[in-house]
C-alpha cells in the first residue's frame, strides 16, 4: 500500500482531482467524512490529510511514501525529499508586503518582519544584508503591520486580495511557488515499481493538461 500525504486547504481539491484523472479515485463518502486517513476504492492507496507544513515531515520520515505540497513549504521546512514533479497547481508568490511602499528603502537599522516562513524570510533579508527581527506567527499575518507588530510581512499571495483588503501592498517578490509531487527517498527505491507507475500516471495527466 502507498500512503499519500495531501496538504489541507488550497491544494487539496486540485490534488484530489489530479489523482482522480491519474486513475486513483477516492470515494465521495470518504471525502465527505471528517476522517484524516482514508483509502481509495482499489485499496492500493491510503490518503492522509495534514497541514501543509507537516506534509514534508511525513514524507521525509517515510510514514507517507509521497505527498502533494507547495514548493514554498518544501523550502521553508528544508525537507530532504525527492521533488520529481511540478504540478502547476496552487500557483502563488512568496512576497514582502507592507503598508508603506518604500519600507525597504528607509534605511531602518532593524526591520521587524512577521511571517509563517521564518527560514525563507531570514534567508531573503540575509542575502540583501538587511538586519531583521523575525516575528513568527501561525496565521492572519496581514494583521501584524496594521496593528504595528511588524514593519512588513513575508507571506504567500495568490491574487493579492487579502493584502489589499488589509491595506498592504507588495514591495518585493521573493519567489514563485507551485504545488509539487514529493517522494520519500527510501520509498522511491524500495517501492520502485509502484512509485514510478504513480509518478508516470500523474505526469501523463499533466502532459494532457498542458496541451
Amino acid at each position, binding site marked *: 500500500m502507498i500512503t499519500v500525504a495531501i496538504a489541507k486547504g488550497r491544494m487539496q481539491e486540485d490534488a484530489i482531482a489530479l489523482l482522480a484523472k491519474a486513475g486513483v479515485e477516492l470515494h465521495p463518502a470518504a471525502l465527505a467524512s471528517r476522517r484524516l486517513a482514508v483509502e481509495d476504492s482499489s485499496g492500493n492507496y491510503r490518503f492522509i490529510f495534514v497541514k501543509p507544513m507537516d506534509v514534508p*515531515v511525513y514524507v521525509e520520515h517515510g510514514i507517507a511514501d509521497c505527498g502533494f505540497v507547495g514548493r514554498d513549504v518544501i523550502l521553508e521546512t528544508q525537507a530532504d525529499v525527492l*521533488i520529481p*514533479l511540478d504540478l502547476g497547481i496552487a500557483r502563488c508568490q512568496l512576497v514582502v508586503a507592507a503598508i508603506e511602499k518604500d519600507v525597504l528603502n528607509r534605511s531602518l537599522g532593524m526591520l521587524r518582519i512577521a511571517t509563517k516562513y521564518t527560514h525563507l524570510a531570514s534567508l531573503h533579508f540575509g542575502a540583501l544584508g538587511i538586519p531583521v527581527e523575525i516575528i513568527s506567527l501561525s496565521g492572519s499575518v496581514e494583521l501584524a503591520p496594521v496593528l504595528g507588530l511588524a514593519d512588513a510581512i513575508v507571506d504567500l499571495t495568490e491574487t493579492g486580495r487579502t493584502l489589499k483588503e488589509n491595506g498592504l501592498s507588495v514591495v518585493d517578490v521573493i519567489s514563485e511557488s507551485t504545488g509539487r509531487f514529493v517522494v*520519500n527517498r*527510501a520509498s522511491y527505491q524500495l517501492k520502485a515499481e509502484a512509485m514510478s507507475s504513480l509518478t508516470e500516471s500523474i505526469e501523463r495527466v499533466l502532459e494532457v493538461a498542458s496541451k
Partner: protein
Amino acid sequence: MSVSKIPSGMRYYIGPEAQLRRWIEDQTMSIFQGWSYEEIITPSVDYYSLFEQGMGQAEARTAFRFTDNDGHLLSLRPDVTSSIARVAATMLARAPRPLRFCYASPVFRQQLQSRAEWRRENTQLGCELIGSNGSTSDVEVLLVAAEILSRVGLADESIITLSHAGIFDGLFNEAGLDQDSRLEIQGLLNSMDETGLKNFFTQRQIATDVAESILLLLQLSGREEVLIQARQSISNSRSLAALDALQKRWTVIHSLGLENRFSLDLADVSGLQYYTGMIFKIYIAGAGYRVGRGGRYDGLTSKFGVEEPAVGFVLSLDALTEVLSRHNRNLVMDSSECTSVKGADLKTTFREALARRARQDQIRIEVPE
C-alpha cells in the same frame, strides 16, 4: 536547566534494545573480519583541520568544536574515514597494500542532516579498502555490504543503489560548469528537482544536448536496461568510461544471482565532489532515509600526501537497530535461564552464587534483595 533533560539528537539504549544493537555490531564486525578487514580504533577527539582536509569544509563544519590547551582547534570526530586516510598516508605509508580496515565507532555531528536523520551521535559501521584499484575491490565491498544486510535479516527489505561519479562529472565538464554551479546542480539532482534543473539550464545557457542527457539520467533507475538507455544519450568519453565500469560491476553481480539486492539509479549521487568512481547508497524498509553510503574516493589519501586508490562504505548502526527493534523478530536469543540464588545469610548466598557462576557460564543468576 533541568537535570532530567538530555541534549537533542542523543538517546539511551536500554536492555533488549542495547542487546540487539550489540548483536548487530558483533555480526557486522565478524563479517568484516571474515573478509580480512582489520579493526581500527581511531581517536574520538582530533584536530579540526584533519576533518577539513578529509571531508571538505562544508561537511566538516558540522563537527562539535573546542580548543586545545595550546589554542589549536579540536573536534569530536564527525567521521572515521579522514583519520584512516591520514594513518594510511603517514604511519602506514610503507605498509604492504592493500590495507583493509573496519570499525564500529560513534561519530558526532552538530547539524541535523534532516529531520528524519535526527541523531547527533551516530555509530558508524564501516570499512575501507586502500591501495587496490579496479573492479575487484569495488565488487568486494558491495558484497560485504550485502552480506551484512542478509545476516541481520534484511536481505528482502533492503536495496543497494549503484551509480558512478564519472557519469555526471563527464556531463558537467561538457557543460563547462564551474565549482559553484556544480554544487548547485548536485543539490538539484539530489532532490530529483526536474523543474529546478530546467531553470538552471536556462539560466546558465547549457547546451541542449547535455541538458537533455542530464534530464534523461534523472529518470533512469532499474536494472541493466538503464545502462543501455544511458549510453544512447551520452557521447563524452569520461561518462562512457564510467558506464563501462558500472556495466562491468553489474555483470558480476548479475552472474552471482544477486541482482535483486541491487539496483542502478544513476542520479542517486549525493557527495559527487568527494567520490571519484563507483557510488552506492543503502536503503532499508522502515527508515525513510539512506542508512548507508559508500564508494570509491581515489583522491582521499592524496590530501595527506600519498596518492592511492580507496573504496569503502558506512552503515548506521543506530538506524539498523531502530528498524530491527521495531520489527520485533527476536534476532537475539536470550537462551540462558535465570536462577534465583538465596541462602540463609550473605555468606551462603554468595558462596552458592560463585559456585553456580563457576560451574556454568551460560546460566544466569540473580541475587534477590
